[in-house]
């Protein structure tokens, strides 16, 4: 059980309103990701749910009962911090045992859960070490272990992978997803990395300045972004947003076309441009096209390789059925 419901929740620091009234329901067992640029209030929102910050008004319900004034320890939530927040003077075993010791669980049960968690997280050989003797990824797993043994109603992750290097991040991303499939516990995950959001989430909550811009599954957000902000934020490389005369031809204030939905030709097409930088990734090539007369630079993505040199003339044709249209307020039109 782990349904979390936010009802008209607000948060102000002094006169500054960080989170205007906000409603959100996170269903039991769901992997929800809060994503947004830095300073959008996603970490604050997580800390409000955890109880580390008091909300200014509104209600938080956990499992159907009002938890607004319940202290963090009694909410049945476990949190994994960005800095891991391991206790440096305790061994890995004692770190993992700490929440159980505080809850007064008997020794045999403690050991059983520690062994189980250590086995699941590949930490069995490191139980007697101090956190200072572990690598970043191992520390991360200890922090997760400490959260698991509490058998919480929901896990809260606060940018847990941002201190790891790129290769390890991909590995841990999989491990956390794997863990979610196995435990089927509610997880709330905060990140600024839209790739993490897209790959892990059942449900993504896109935030900007404390306001929810869109809630939906990763593919909903990809195929039908509700506004220009979500369109630009979700997807990599970013969607090309084109304003002006070209947009008006399609009856919109702004049109958006994803780099992967643009056909490229060296001989003819809808838009003519000049090749800038081409990024060759092997499987894909990203070409930055300038001087198209459409305003900003256009990025296109081609599967495989293409022989396009800097300064070459290139023609682009958007796939019209994949075109996104936005009205003057930036909202999705049609």
């Amino acid at each position, binding site marked *: 059980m782990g349904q979390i419901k936010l009802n008209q929740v607000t948060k102000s620091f002094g006169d500054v309103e960080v989170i205007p009234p906000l409603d959100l329901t996170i269903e039991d067992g769901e992997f929800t990701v809060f994503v947004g640029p830095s300073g959008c209030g996603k970490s604050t929102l997580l800390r409000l749910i955890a109880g580390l910050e008091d909300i200014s008004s509104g209600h938080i319900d956990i499992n159907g009962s009002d938890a607004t004034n319940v202290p963090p*320890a009694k909410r049945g939530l476990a949190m994994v911090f960005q800095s891991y927040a391991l206790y*440096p003077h305790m061994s890995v075993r004692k770190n993992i045992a700490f*929440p159980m010791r505080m809850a007064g669980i008997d020794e045999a049960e403690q050991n059983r859960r520690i062994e189980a968690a250590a086995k699941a997280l590949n930490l069995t050989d490191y139980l007697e070490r101090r956190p200072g003797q572990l690598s970043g990824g191992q520390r991360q797993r200890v922090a997760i272990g400490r959260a698991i043994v509490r058998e919480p109603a929901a896990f809260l992750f606060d940018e847990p992978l941002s201190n790891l290097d790129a290769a390890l991040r991909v590995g841990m991303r999989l491990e956390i997803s794997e863990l979610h499939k196995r435990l089927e516990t509610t997880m709330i995950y905060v990140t600024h990395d839209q790739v993490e959001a897209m790959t892990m989430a059942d449900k993504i909550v896109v935030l900007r300045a404390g306001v929810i811009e869109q809630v939906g599954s990763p593919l909903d957000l990809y195929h039908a972004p509700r506004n220009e902000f979500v369109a630009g934020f979700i997807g990599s490389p970013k969607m090309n947003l084109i304003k002006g005369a070209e947009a008006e031809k399609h009856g919109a204030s702004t049109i958006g076309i994803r780099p992967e939905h643009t056909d490229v030709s060296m001989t003819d097409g809808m838009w003519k441009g000049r090749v800038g930088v081409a990024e060759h990734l092997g499987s894909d090539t990203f070409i930055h096209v300038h001087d198209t007369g459409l305003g900003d630079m256009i990025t296109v993505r081609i599967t495989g390789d293409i022989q396009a040199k800097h300064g070459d003339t290139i023609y682009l044709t958007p796939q019209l059925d994949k075109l996104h249209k936005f009205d003057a307020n930036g909202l999705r039109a049609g």
Partner: protein
Amino acid sequence: MATQHSRSAARLMMAPAVILLLGWMLVPLIMTLMFSFKKYLPLRGGDLGWVGFENYVRFVSSSSFWPSVMATLIIVGGVLLITVVFGVLLALLLNQPMWGQGIVRILVIAPFFVMPTVSALVWKNMFMDPVNGLFAHLWRFFGATPIEWLSQASLQSIVMIVSWQWLPFATLILLTAIQSLDSEQLEAAEMDGAPPLKRFGYIILPHLGRAITVVVLIQTIFLLAVFAEIFVTTGGAFGTRTLTYLIYQRVLESQNVGLGSAGGVYAIILANIVAIFLMRAVGKNLDE
């Protein structure tokens, strides 16, 4: 990368400082050692020749030796206990955000800037005077008979005065240590279900371990040599004669340089034993 040439040049450059420092330390040390094996009474015949270990035996077998060791240990131990306990509490308090934090912190640190002689005199005359002291007035206000602090509770009084002087130092070091604690650790402990007292015991106190060892080490070195506070208050009477004070009395009041020097050598040995223990404790703590 130092070449052979620059290394020898560096040695040459450093030589004056090293020689000066060595001389500064070695000359008094060797003179003390030399005097300790002599019968040397400046006002009663001067240098009366070598006497072997007689001074060492006499210093230890004197009836005031063991009480002076006890007095030293009580003062050092008492001050350490008070400054560490209250230092931790004050540091926790000062770490709380409050209005006028900067001024409060300066005020807390102020006693450290008062010279020992001055602060001991202020305590003696302003607070502990049995007729006109503030404590006497306080006691009388509640209808009690004022305590004659420096004679009835002489050791406690000295511990109090010295603690007052050293509390700011302990507080300052411990405050900086508390400020370096990662707040996410405390939040993690809070989420793990640790109430404030347990957060203190399991997270804050172990974090302060290193700073506490440093405070104990530095203070012990200085407290073993406490002198001015005793000199201006009790003058070594009422059981406040520490080892340092005993040596002073032997040399200057009894005019027996040989006997005092032997006491000085004992003090060096004692200080080194303490230092070895402390260094090992600190080393162990710093390794982790």
